[in-house]
């Protein structure tokens, strides 16, 4: 075994000699690669569809069976497309890795000698937990400082937070972090007053204000973490490849504590590398952008990637929600390359902790991806970009197609059972092969399962190529057990997601949003029974009715259908069990679902975990103040008030100097707030006050200087509480 084969799984495969950017461009046998991938999909799908058609032919073909066959063909080709990625990726990695990878334009460990282009690290946030967000920023900042290249980077926290509590927490956490890191003039914070066009608008706002100051921006999500080395390497890649408009990294899922999150991160870590190698094989310089953990060349982004509006209104039209795919397509249309940096280590993100939160995220993504159907035929887009848009749509449309396939299957079996007719022997291929009807059906079933499981097998073989490759996953015994566990859990979870997605698609097509019950969480983020029951009750009833109907038709058919119905039927306990952090800890202790990032955590993650464990947890506000603790701090705390006022700087000077009481239109609101408490105001009124610098300054004075008997009981109690527990340090991270 050579030295390279002892590398940890997921790292750069052997044969990583550098390639010149021009050579990378010349080496694009783009069409040939895509034709090969398409041929493989056809080779896998064709026989299966043929067998299914033959099966239907044996029992007499009709319209329902035609529909069933069409659904089968569509679904099977999607599965085959995924399998082809794994097959091609595995073959490439086995052969020493693809020649055409953008990371190969840099030599491994190449020293950075030339100055880097000025780069902004932007992190849009929206009501996320500031303690976690700023802990990640701290870890990234320190990791970057350790590279000695900090001088080329500036950090921007771009807040769209609408919750006043989060907003005030972000401000104080930002100041505390700037103080701690000595990052004045390097770590910035901006909160937009109006969240026009959501995250895409937030980034566009940054580009309009400060884009000219930077050559690149590295976009992070609120749950992203990256190592300093990865950040520097991304900039180096852009400098080396002047036609690259976007380089997207492959973030690894980390820090999962619940079984659900650990399942996701284990699956993506184990199966990901072969898939990504296959993806890069046909994408080349026309890859996709996933919206975060990526570097963007700002000038062409500003010139070409401002999003147009779609015809109609939301949810199907209007502003583009899933901006990243479209931005990649526009960048490619303008002649810039978009690359997927497979094998670039040091990029991480986190995963929703439970099935319900995961579905909520999918709800947003689904609506955004369905909007892309407007763009499929847009003029000037590259074929690869159209394929990315189509695959994004199908990623969610596959669920209703699968549901329809299962329903039509049920209908066919019911019709067959109801008529009581025996099979009409007709000429078919199966006759020639001497296959019974049942054997032919089993063959199809086995073929489908084989296609689904082949990528898992290939991923395990890929691990086996490296000496000690299973050790970071806990060793072969635990890795094998983890794969079995992951497979069983996926089999249960997939049908639940199918029902979620089908509902979302239907509601989106009907032009309606999806209503969610209020999120109620346990102390450590676990979903509670009430939320799980309200969310899954419909799915469980549907599965129970379907199961009973299948049982009534035919016991054997019900048995076949049972794996699909089991997940939705037991969705409530499934969600609770997989969303329980205690269960996650048990799995971890048992060495199941381990990933290399858990067994050998990179320094940046180790530091992040340490900070979160060691830093004093913020004192949660007392229950009676929890709803308005942001307003409370901004009004009462002299420092939080001062920071808040200085951040309202655009109107600060004008408002703060205003002395004409007749023009003080917020005076009645302030009086109401002080004398009757925050609940006497509407959320919009409270927000208005928080946005008015003059009011916040006067409110601070008014609250401190008014006799207690003229304050609302809420404020009196809040001041008493505050007096006892005033901050020991001027500003603390929340």
């Amino acid at each position, binding site marked *: 075994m050579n030295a390279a084969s002892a590398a940890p799984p997921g790292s750069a495969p052997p044969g990583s000699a550098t390639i010149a950017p021009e050579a990378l461009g010349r080496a694009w046998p783009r069409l040939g690669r895509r034709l090969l991938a398409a041929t493989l999909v056809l080779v896998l799908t064709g026989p299966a569809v043929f067998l299914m058609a033959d099966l239907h032919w044996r029992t007499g073909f009709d319209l329902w069976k035609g529909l069933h066959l069409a659904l089968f063909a569509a679904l099977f080709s999607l599965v085959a497309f995924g399998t082809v990625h794994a097959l091609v990726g595995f073959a490439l990695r086995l052969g020493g890795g693809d020649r055409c990878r953008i990371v190969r334009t840099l030599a491994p460990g190449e020293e950075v000698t030339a100055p880097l282009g000025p780069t902004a690290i932007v992190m849009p946030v929206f009501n996320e937990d500031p303690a976690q967000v700023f802990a990640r920023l701290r870890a990234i900042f320190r990791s970057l400082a350790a590279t000695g290249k900090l001088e080329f980077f500036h950090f921007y926290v771009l807040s769209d937070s609408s919750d006043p509590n989060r907003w005030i927490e972000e401000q104080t956490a930002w100041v505390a972090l700037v103080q701690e890191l000595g990052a004045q003039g390097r770590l910035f914070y901006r909160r937009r007053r109006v969240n026009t066009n959501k995250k895409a608008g937030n980034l566009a706002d940054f580009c309009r*204000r400060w*884009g000219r100051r930077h050559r690149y921006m590295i976009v992070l999500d609120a749950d992203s973490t990256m190592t300093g080395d990865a950040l520097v390497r991304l900039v180096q890649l852009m400098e080396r490849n002047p036609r690259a408009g976007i380089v997207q990294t492959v973030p690894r899922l980390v820090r999962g504590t619940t079984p659900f999150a650990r399942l996701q991160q284990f699956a993506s870590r184990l199966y990901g590398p072969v898939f990504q190698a296959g993806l890069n094989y046909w994408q080349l310089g026309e890859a996709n952008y996933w919206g975060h953990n990526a570097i963007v060349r700002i000038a062409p982004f500003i010139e070409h990637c*401002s999003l*147009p509006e779609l*015809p109609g209104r939301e949810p199907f039209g209007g502003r583009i929600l899933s901006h990243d795919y479209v931005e990649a397509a526009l960048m490619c249309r303008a002649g810039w390359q978009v690359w997927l940096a497979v094998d670039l280590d040091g990029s991480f993100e986190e995963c929703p902790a439970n099935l319900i939160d995961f579905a909520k995220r999918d709800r947003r993504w689904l609506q955004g991806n369905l909007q892309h159907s407007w763009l499929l035929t847009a003029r000037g887009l590259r074929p690869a970009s159209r394929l990315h848009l189509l695959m994004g749509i199908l990623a969610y449309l596959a669920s209703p197609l699968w549901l329809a396939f299962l329903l039509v299957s049920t209908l066919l079996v019911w019709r067959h059972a109801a008529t009581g007719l025996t099979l009409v022997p007709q000429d078919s291929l199966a006759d020639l092969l001497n296959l019974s009807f049942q054997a032919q059906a089993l063959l199809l079933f086995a073929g489908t399962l084989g296609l689904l499981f082949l990528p898992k097998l290939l991923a395990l073989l890929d691990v086996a190529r490296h000496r000690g490759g299973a050790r970071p996953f806990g060793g072969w015994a635990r890795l094998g057990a983890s794969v079995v566990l992951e497979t069983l859990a996926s089999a249960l979870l997939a049908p639940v997601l199918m029902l979620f997605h089908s509902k979302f698609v239907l509601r989106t097509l009907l032009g309606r949003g999806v209503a969610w019950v209020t999120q109620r969480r346990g102390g450590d983020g676990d979903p509670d029974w009430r939320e799980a029951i309200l969310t899954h009750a419909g799915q469980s009833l549907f599965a129970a009715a379907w199961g009973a109907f299948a049982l009534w038709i035919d016991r054997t058919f019900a048995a076949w259908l049972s794996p699909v119905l089991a997940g939705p039927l037991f969705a409530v306990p499934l969600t609770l069990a997989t969303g329980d952090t205690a269960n996650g800890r048990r799995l971890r202790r048992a060495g199941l679902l381990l990933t290399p990032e858990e067994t050998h955590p990179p320094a940046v993650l180790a530091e992040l975990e340490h900070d979160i464990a060691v830093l004093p947890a913020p004192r949660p506000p007392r229950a009676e103040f929890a709803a308005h603790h942001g307003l409370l701090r901004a009004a009462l705390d002299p420092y939080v008030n*001062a920071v808040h006022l200085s951040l309202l700087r655009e109107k600060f000077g004008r408002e*703060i100097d205003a002395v004409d009481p007749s023009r003080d239109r917020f005076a009645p609101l302030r009086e109401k707030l002080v004398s009757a408490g925050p609940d006497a105001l509407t959320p919009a009124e409270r927000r208005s006050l928080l946005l008015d610098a003059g009011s916040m300054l006067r409110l601070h004075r008014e609250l401190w200087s*008014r006799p207690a008997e003229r304050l609302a009981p809420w404020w009196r109690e809040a001041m008493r509480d505050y007096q006892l527990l005033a901050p*020991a340090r*001027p500003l603390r991270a929340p």
Partner: protein
Amino acid sequence: MSATLSPTELPLDDPAWEAAWQRVESYLHAHGLEQRLALVRLTDRIVARAWAAAAREPGTPPVTLALREADAVMADWFARVLEQPPAATAAPAPAAPPAAHPRRLSVRGRIALAMSGVPARWPRHFLADEPPPAELVAAMRAAYLEAGPPVEFTNMAASELELGVLADAAGQTWEKLRRWPLVGAALGWAAFVALLAFLFYATR
């Protein structure tokens, strides 16, 4: 200003002045002044000023007077620390910026306090009458909060995107249906009838 409460003047039996004293102490504590002796002395001094002012404004509640005096003491101290030129004998300190509006100075002063940690590092000198040490002045003047670099606006116009014939047609239809709900409903009914017809045909 060197007012202190004398024992004969202390309004010990007046709960309103007791409340004022507590409020001032709480306010100073909120600024991070934790050293008890400094806290008590400073509170005494501010309440004494308020007590003196009470004679001129008998109708004003003691809490209001006391906090107004606290603000005045702070404003005066911020002006001296942040805006007066450094004394010739003092150690070099960053040059003072031009005088700001008192309200803005209050905000800037509080931020400088927070960033330099004056109440915790120099409790004896916080709001004291005597000239502050040069190190304190330097720390206060060097403290700033920069939320973002100077803005350099760039135009970022939405990209032109021709959606193609199919999408254009769909968009126009969408718009029409939105404007003419009756046509939309009629089309929906037609689709429903067509579905029934299909089901009838498919199940024969």
